[in-house]
């Protein structure tokens, strides 16, 4: 979908802001931001992209998505 790259880029931008924080806080910050501001569909699309494999994705974003999925489970 045309949005994928945008979502990846947006997620990386969020990660770029929180990266400077201690790791746990950074993961929580990225996860919290995506939870608070992204629609469920956007979160699902990003999760689907993560499920395809980590190539090109920011590790902090992957970890944050994992945390969100764990919270939702």
């Amino acid at each position, binding site marked *: *979908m*045309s*949005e994928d790259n*945008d979502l990846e*880029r*947006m997620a990386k*931008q*969020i990660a*770029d*802001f929180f*990266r*400077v*924080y201690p790791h746990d806080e950074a993961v929580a910050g990225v996860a919290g*931001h995506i939870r*608070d*501001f*992204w*629609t*469920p*569909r*956007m979160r699902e699309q990003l999760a689907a992209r993560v499920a395809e494999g980590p190539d090109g994705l920011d590790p902090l974003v992957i970890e944050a998505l994992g945390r969100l999925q764990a919270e939702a489970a």
Partner: protein
Amino acid sequence: MAVAAEPDFGTPERETDKTVSLEIDGQTVTVPEGTSIMRAASEVGQPIPKLCATDSLEPWGSCRMCLVEIEGVRGTPSSCTTPVREGMKVKTQTARLEKIRRGVMELYISDHPLDCLTCAANGDCELQDTAGEVGLREVRYGFEGETHFGANAEAKDTSNPYFDFDPAKCIVCSRCVRACEEQQGTFALTIQGRGFDSKVSPGLGLDDFFSSECVSCGACVQACPTATLMEKSVHEHGLPTRSVSTTCAYCGVGCSFRAEMQGDQVIRMVPEKSGGANEGHSCVKGRFAWGYATHKDRVTTPMVRDKITDPWREATWDEAIAFAAERFKAIQQTYGRDAIGGVTSSRCTNEEVYVVQKMIRAAFRNNNVDTCARVCHSPTGYGLKTTLGTSAGTQNFKSVEKADVILVIGANPTDGHPVFGSRLKKRLREGARLIVADPRRIDLVKSPHIAAAYHLQLQPGTNVALMNALAHVVVTEGLVDEAYVAERCDTLEFDRWRAFVSEDRNSPEYLSDKIGVEAEDLRAAARLYATGGNAAIYYGLGVTEHSQGSTMVMAMANLAMATGNIGREGVGINPLRGQNNVQGSCDMGSFPHEFPGYRHVSDTAVRSLFEADWGLPLSAEPGMRIPNMLAEAVDGTFKGMFVQGEDIAQSDPNTRHVTAALEAMECVVVQDLFLNETAAYAHVFLPGTSFLEKDGTFTNAERRINRVRPVMPERSGLSEWETVCRLARAMGYDMHYGSAAEIMDEIARLTPTFTGVSFARLDAEGSLQWPVNDAAPDGTPTMHVNQFVRGKGRFMITEFVPTEERTNRSYPLILTTGRILSQYNVGAQTRRTENVRWHESDVLEIHPFDAEERGIGDGDMVSIQSRKGAVSLPAMISDRMPQGVVYTTFHHPVSGTNVITTEFSDWATNCPEYKVTAVQVAISNQPSDWQIEYERLKRTHYRSTIEAAE
């Protein structure tokens, strides 16, 4: 009979706790120290005749009309220039004074045309009134002034589109000259010549008003006691017969005006001295550019069409609303509940915005509501809420009077927020120091009697680096207000931030090349901000419209907290809001993740409150922002949009993407005054109401809630909020209000910061600054006084992350966009006024070296090409641009400025990065492909065109 003006006490009020008691004509009076005798007398109902004095200006003492006798004082001093003293005994009326005043008036009248009955000021002339007050019965020197009538008459200057200057009627009181200096700060006027040859002159000898430096703020017209400077509309129609107090609908300053009327026709808009935001001042837009409200382009009948290539078909309200509702419902049945959404407008009232977001949440049953603040100040909301706890500026405008150091970042107040700009300039003339951080040399950097101590001419996109460098100096040179931070801020967060900004990579020396400013200047500016007394930050879209817009807002909050510059008058962080109700539209729950009052939709307690009041369950998930809606429309999953008073096809970035999204939708509903660019892609047009027809409130950049009152009936026959209620009902949600006041009552019931707000209270008190609740029953002019709203101030680490938009050999220049004084945003309003005479088209400002390299001359048509598209504009060579940076505005749709801006946006809020687009500029002799296509689409999409202003 003319409408009653506000009382004029002759000289300004003095603000001090010390008082002085004196006796005036036997009455004991107690007034603040420094008050003039004239004002003291006026306050006890003993007004003294005057001509050169008015309470918006400092006393001048030239007319000799206001003389008084003071016991123990020789002569007859002028009461306007003589301050009160303890125990003073004053006589305002004696035989001697009467004789002197009458004699002086005789001299005035001997050189003034006595065409009173046919004069535009007849009935509203202070000279006429004063002649009556002093009992003028004869003029021994004759009435034949040399330059009044006939062949010797000095020609009227009618060059300004809004007012005329008739030198024959001038009494050389200098009120206009002083208003231009003291109130406006432009210094465009002067008195030329001596004695009988003295006359008011705009600028140099050959200038007329239009060609002079005059900015048409109207202060001179307002100050003139005769018909010398008079609105053309009064010349044409006569004096107004009634007036209604209301609020300007242009920028976020939110000036109070008296709409002076004859019947339902506006004769003039007069700024109100009692207006908290403007205190009697105005700009060319609010004062004069209101003609759009009755422009022939107004569409006042609902219209529908099946396809956007069909011609519009007029419809009844019921038909149009049913058409929109059926389409929206059909879309939801086919594509799902989330396939529709809407956008609220920062030009509409709080009440109108509130009902749109309620319709979307309750009738559309999703949270797909966003607002045009998305593309301007959304980072302000995020950044200030994160650091300080509330999504709003910290001060009132008056606070600037107590600032000692003023840091203006990414704002151009003299153009974008001119009335505040004048207030700021006044403080600078009084001695406050100025730091400007802006790639362009904006007017504030150097203008009459003002020079910035530092102009940090940074590279676009390096704001955060700049702030970090300033913070580095504050922290490493021991300039932190340690006691303030220890008492008021989260010390763990502060310690982390201190360690971060202390790193060498945040030093001015390290960042200087990136920022494009000498390290020494960065250090000096930081020292001035931290040690120069009360330091206040004022900022605009040059801060927010970046990929790090939110980071930058937090970086400014960090700096202000570290230096103890929040929580009292004269300091603070002050967003200069672009539109009249940006603050209000955000307050009213226009964001997809927040209910009114900035409370997250996932908060069960808050959601339950709204569910109980609105009578249905609400979504706990954030909805789509505007860019999400557009992206999903292009993807084919978002199909319907309600657009309230916004023109996303012109104002939002990457125009081709926006129009592709609009074209992909099955139902676009536009509620607006005009068939704007977005309406070209709409299926339903619902006529909106101008601010002159609205009943409601606007909230300005100081959180001031002002009343907007209707001065004429809705031209469409229906208020905007009622239209929205009807659409909500047609969608299946029963939404009813009896009046706009009832909507505000609901807002107050559900929003803790608005608890004490009601129309009745606003009508009684003029305005209120939120929060207005039990903790602050009279409102809150200054935020965070004893503690931050969030409790402890939160320092955020603000790593500088350069934008992904980069220059290279193909796109070597950076384009930045903005607006100018005479025009307003997409120009839908101002292009339909005489303001077009100051700005007939957008131009590209380019540095002389960049122009020379490309063989570009002033006025040449040039092509501006970005990675997204190209447009052609005339070039304007200007050394106020730095090399490598070009600038344009987006006031004219045919310019297509946003064809070239990109989809890059702020990391936290998706506010577009309008301020950084890599471009190449080259000579061109034709419009761009997009501009040719735009002209073609006028025929197929039934765009409206604007002819001559009316």
